[in-house]
């Protein structure tokens, strides 16, 4: 009884909509209606409303490809393009592909041979039956969060002038692996000079000290879109069956081992932030009281939140290690009792 109540509470807290098993009719999202798309492109309803697109729907395939590509880059930023279509106020991303460019801070745009690649790829895709157009670009921010840097903002503003509708997606593969959930953000920039109507607060994320200025200067120039995912009925069927083979990987994953560098970097970054906060606090005692107080408090509070986040991730990683230790290492003592394999596991 308790567990049912607990589950309902948990579901309510997290706004989990009951996942109706997608039936074949919902696969209609995969159908590309050329006429409707062309009409939409002509109408350009987004020209008047900078806040027109509010939602993003990403297909399972696109997400998988983007995350794998982002992770394969290691600590180097990688980028690619996304293909899809629009649907009212939602942009639907059906597929993604990687571009042969290496990301550095100074590159503004993809180079010439990347353009060639793009054209070739789109052509071959159309031949093979992938009819969608390019609707956006994605790139990775390994280890420093999902937001648009100054260069990203100017690139996206350019894209939104000439290649509408266009979407920018940022993925952080390091944080994905560390936290155990996908770290992704979808953004659109406001046109030059437009002031957003309300000061919406986005979900807080830690930004390393060396990037925090870049983040702060530009964070008002774009807004985040809500991301949902979808998959076809065949996809969900296959993924369910995949679990039969996959559980081994879940059990054997060790998030602590892969991300040692990242955690160390986070901790040292936190130490620097603490010093900064301390300096500010010392100076504020001499200065006037009042509003300046709020800033340091919230900075210390931010640091606290960051430290809790790091700790939580560490503890999660350790928990799985401890569990595996109990499962597989402590059996030695029981085995010596000449009994058939007894269940060392806790019953559900």
């Amino acid at each position, binding site marked *: 009884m308790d567990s049912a109540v607990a589950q309902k509470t948990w579901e309510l807290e997290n706004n989990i909509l009951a996942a109706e098993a997608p039936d074949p009719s919902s696969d209609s999202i995969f159908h590309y209606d050329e006429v409707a798309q062309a009409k939409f492109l002509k109408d350009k309803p987004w020209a008047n409303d900078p806040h027109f697109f509010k939602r993003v729907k990403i297909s399972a395939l696109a997400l998988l490809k983007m995350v794998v590509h982002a992770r394969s880059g290691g600590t180097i930023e990688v980028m690619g393009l996304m293909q899809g279509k629009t649907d009212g106020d939602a942009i639907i991303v059906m597929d993604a592909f990687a571009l042969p460019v290496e990301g550095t801070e100074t590159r503004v745009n993809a180079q010439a041979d990347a353009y060639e690649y793009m054209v070739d790829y789109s052509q071959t895709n159309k031949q093979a039956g992938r009819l969608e157009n390019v609707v956006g670009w994605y790139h990775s921010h390994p280890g420093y969060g999902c937001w648009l840097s100054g260069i990203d903002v100017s690139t996206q503003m350019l894209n939104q002038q000439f290649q509408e509708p266009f979407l920018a997606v940022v993925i952080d593969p390091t944080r994905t692996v560390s936290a155990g959930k996908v770290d992704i953000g979808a953004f659109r920039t406001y046109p030059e000079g437009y002031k957003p109507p309300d000061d919406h607060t986005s979900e807080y994320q830690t930004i390393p000290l060396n990037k925090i200025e870049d983040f702060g200067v530009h964070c008002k120039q774009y807004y985040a879109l809500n991301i949902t995912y979808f998959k076809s009925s*065949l996809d969900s069927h296959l993924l369910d069956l995949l*679990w039969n083979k996959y559980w081994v990987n879940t059990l054997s994953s060790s998030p602590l081992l892969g991300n040692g560098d990242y955690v160390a970097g986070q901790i040292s970054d936190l130490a620097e932030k603490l010093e900064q906060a301390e300096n500010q606090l010392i100076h504020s005692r001499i200065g006037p009281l009042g509003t300046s107080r709020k800033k340091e408090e919230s900075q210390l509070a931010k640091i606290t939140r960051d430290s809790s986040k790091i700790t939580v991730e560490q503890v999660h990683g350790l928990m799985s290690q401890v569990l595996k230790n109990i499962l597989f290492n402590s059996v030695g003592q029981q085995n010596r009792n000449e009994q058939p394999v007894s269940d060392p596991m806790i019953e559900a």
Partner: protein
Amino acid sequence: MASSSSSGLTFKLHPLVIVNISDHYTRVKSQMNPPPPTSVTSNSNNSNGGENNQSPPRAYGCVIGVQRGRTVEIFNSFELLYDPSTHSLDRSFLEKKQELYKKVFPNFYVLGWYSTGNDAEESDMHIHKALMDVNESPVYVLLNPAINHAQKDLPVTIYESELHVIDGIPQLIFVRSSYTIETVEAERISVDHVAHLKPSGGSAATQLAAQLTGIHSAIKMLNSRIRVLHQYLVGMQKGDLPCENALLRQVSSLLRRLPATESEKFQDDFLTEYNDTLLVTYLATFTNCSSTMNDLVDKFNTAYDRHSRRGGRTAFI
């Protein structure tokens, strides 16, 4: 036509390939049977029912990956054009696509091809032979797109070609090979994310719940598999089932592998990691504590603000 392979190659398949093929098939299917418009009347329902009986054509494509020694790891795949008249795949298209993929993934080679369908057919052998000049021993991945809820196993089979002598004539036939699912951590997390639609963000409590639920389900699977083995062994002991020595040997070797690691070094490293985590927790609680203290002091000072305007500390009443 399909017996088990004896080539000794181990195959590793990444989930990305499976999702790729499934997506290709769904696209082909939906372009062929356009969905009914949103305003439906009973008439259009009937006509659409008739349309849906068209069986979608098979989807064909190429799989790429890495071959290291005896291990073949299939990482990715892309679509190919199939020419029904000549029963062959479009060669120039393949080469163009291959070039494009080489630029982004320079390590991947063409390992074989895939298609959707129920079972390997004779015509597939033509395509297989045609691909043999790209890779002398290509693999053939077959995905069965029929959704059968009673099925417990992945409807993906990997075939290799082997030269067998049938009726005195050496012929190439398809033989089935076993494979394992291989993944990198990031792939696993995103597959998990899409498959189970876990909540993102939320408080630490929900994150903890999500993490533990994941591990719990994995352990439940382990438990059920071991139970199956156990029941089988008990049955063999009682004499209900025939004694199979090969299986007994495998079970015994499995048991001998526990405990997994018992070395001193492992214990040391494990405890060090444990201590490191505890230290991090300690530091975090410390930070939390000092932050709360800071808040308290500030609130205190604000409450007694009229006194501190004179500067310095004052006694408080």
